[in-house]
């Protein structure tokens, strides 16, 4: 799901958002505040966090990225890196001083259940279901809605989109917002299963990046398949080879895919279609 947010932004802007992990982190912290401080129900907290993340993402484009649109690509990429540090600093300012990490209570009965003899946490299943719904929603959005097709049009050829009457800058703003909203949703979903720290976003970004590269940069189905594959490879490597390999699997995947098949699993199909 984190990979999906990366892909959404990449499809429309051609840029990897290196602040994506921190947007997820902000989503988690927002959920923390809504649930534990304002005692708002989890689902309502999810909706609120997604809306605020969307606005935050749109604002970053409106006030930062749009101003750098005519600069070299590297400038914009560095701006996303800068934003990631800014968001970490802001989260420390707003949510710091309460111990090293924050926690959100379980959203449902936390006891493990058995699915085909395999023990899983019911919470994990709920989160998986929510993630699948959101991912399918994104697929439908890009393939079946005018807004989604407009975003794709801007991604494929901004000039042609502009000549066709599409307000390219506005579409890009909402694309950054959509990416942030997906990151925020992922943050809220992962929050009950994780501990919240301002530094939680980076490793998730790396794994999401590995999933995106594996699936093919810019491919929504690729991000989904890539995400599941990275998780599976990590667990198998950690379980059957060495636990030390679990964390480096993502980096190994990135290196192998970029060397052997730079277009990723689904990238070639998209290139042929183009």
């Amino acid at each position, binding site marked *: 799901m984190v990979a999906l947010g990366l892909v959404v932004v990449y499809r429309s802007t051609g840029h990897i958002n290196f602040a994506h992990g921190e947007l997820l982190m902000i989503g988690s912290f927002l959920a923390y505040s809504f649930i534990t401080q304002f005692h708002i129900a989890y689902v309502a907290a999810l909706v609120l966090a997604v809306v605020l993340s969307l606005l935050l993402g749109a604002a970053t484009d409106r006030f930062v990225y749009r101003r750098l649109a005519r600069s070299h690509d590297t400038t914009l990429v560095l701006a996303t890196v800068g934003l990631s540090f800014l968001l*970490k600093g802001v989260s*420390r300012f707003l949510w710091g*001083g*309460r*111990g*090293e*990490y924050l*926690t959100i*209570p*379980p959203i449902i009965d*936390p*006891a*493990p259940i058995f699915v085909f003899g395999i*023990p*899983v*946490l019911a919470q994990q299943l709920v989160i998986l279901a929510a993630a699948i719904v959101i991912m399918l929603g994104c697929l439908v959005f890009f393939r079946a809605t005018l807004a989604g097709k407009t975003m794709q049009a801007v991604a494929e050829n901004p000039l042609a989109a502009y000549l066709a009457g599409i307000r390219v800058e506005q579409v890009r703003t909402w694309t950054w917002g959509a990416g942030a909203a997906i990151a925020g949703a992922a943050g809220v979903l*992962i929050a*009950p*299963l*994780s*501990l919240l*720290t*301002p*530094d*939680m976003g980076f*490793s*998730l970004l790396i794994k999401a990046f590995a999933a995106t590269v594996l699936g093919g940069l810019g491919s929504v189905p690729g991000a989904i398949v890539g995400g599941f594959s990275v*998780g599976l490879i*990590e*667990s*198998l490597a*950690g*379980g059957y080879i*060495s*636990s*030390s390999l*679990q*964390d480096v699997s993502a980096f190994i995947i990135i290196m192998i895919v970029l060397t052997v098949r730079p277009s990723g699993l689904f990238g070639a199909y998209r290139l042929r279609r183009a």
Partner: protein
Amino acid sequence: MVRLARAILSGVLGASLSLAPAWAETGVTDHEIVIGAFGVLTGPTYDYGKVVFDGAETIYNEVNAAGGVNGRKIRYVREDDQCKADAAVPAVRKLIYEDKVFMINGGACSNAALAAMPEIVRADIPWVITDATAPQLTDPATPNIVTTFQVGWMETAAQLQRALELGGKKIAIVRQHDAWAASRYQPLLDAMAKRGIKAVADEEVAPDVADTTAVALRLQAAGADSVLLLLFPQAATVLMRDMYKIGYKPLVIGGSPLGEVSEMQHAIGIPGATDRFEGLAPTKSLDDPAVQKYRPLLNKYFPNAELTPWHLLGIASAQFVVAALKQVGPDVTRAKLATVLSTMSLSPDVYAGPIKCTPTDHQCYRTVAWYGMVDGKMKQVGVTTLP
């Protein structure tokens, strides 16, 4: 005549020397003692420095409010070393040569403290270390340097001892791959080797790992009955959750980052998931009445702060310093303080045991308390004092 003049002059000089004020020592006046602190004050690891020093300053402020030490108020000056060796040296130089501190009560990150150490030794300044854990800082014992916190090897030695005390036979290790765990890993292997123990499993995870099912399965397959964790709360919480998920419930002994067992239980959220877990803490629990009284005191001087275990390290260290200064008496000199520190003993009300220095051992705090969940509440379940 010349002889008489010499005699008068030497008499005057002698009298003036004998009447020299007791505060003729750098950093000491008739109404003030300047104590310096260097450590990380900004950035993600500020807990180790700023928060610890807030605890120390709370004690110093309270002592000042009560009239000071032998009539002198304590001024606590801080310098930021950003937890970096290259920033620690100029920070300490500023304390010594610009702020002209009498002594240092600080030192948070080991790498920074080790870099600053030669400068402090050269200046011959008493240094009471608050929380830097590198053993080389105090072993071999340097006359002016003592630590009021545990050093690196003690934690893992205590973890191993506790596992054995509780009947552990097949011991496994799970560590995170970072410098913090690495600094404890080799001492643990050494302690195990001394007892002729070999780990049945030795697993490594990322500090921010999100899923450890594979690791839990490997531990279970190895038949480990006890698991020693060199982990921070994130990884430990995930591992405890995943072990519980697969129905594997070994004895688990955590280090100092896992002392707040109730927080871990809260984070896991599964009743019973931490029933066989014990976490180590050098301090008493935050819920202990002796500790509770420091909440309002801390907020008196730092209104937005929430009391954490890190504050307690500063509180204990400052209490130790104040007691030592009182013992030195009104005629305060660095040499006298160093002598007192070398034989000083104190039981701070926030620590699980006494801080006790000897002339040959300046690693003065060797007690750990064990915390676990009993009937749904975090309680102290044991104490280990290392030889």
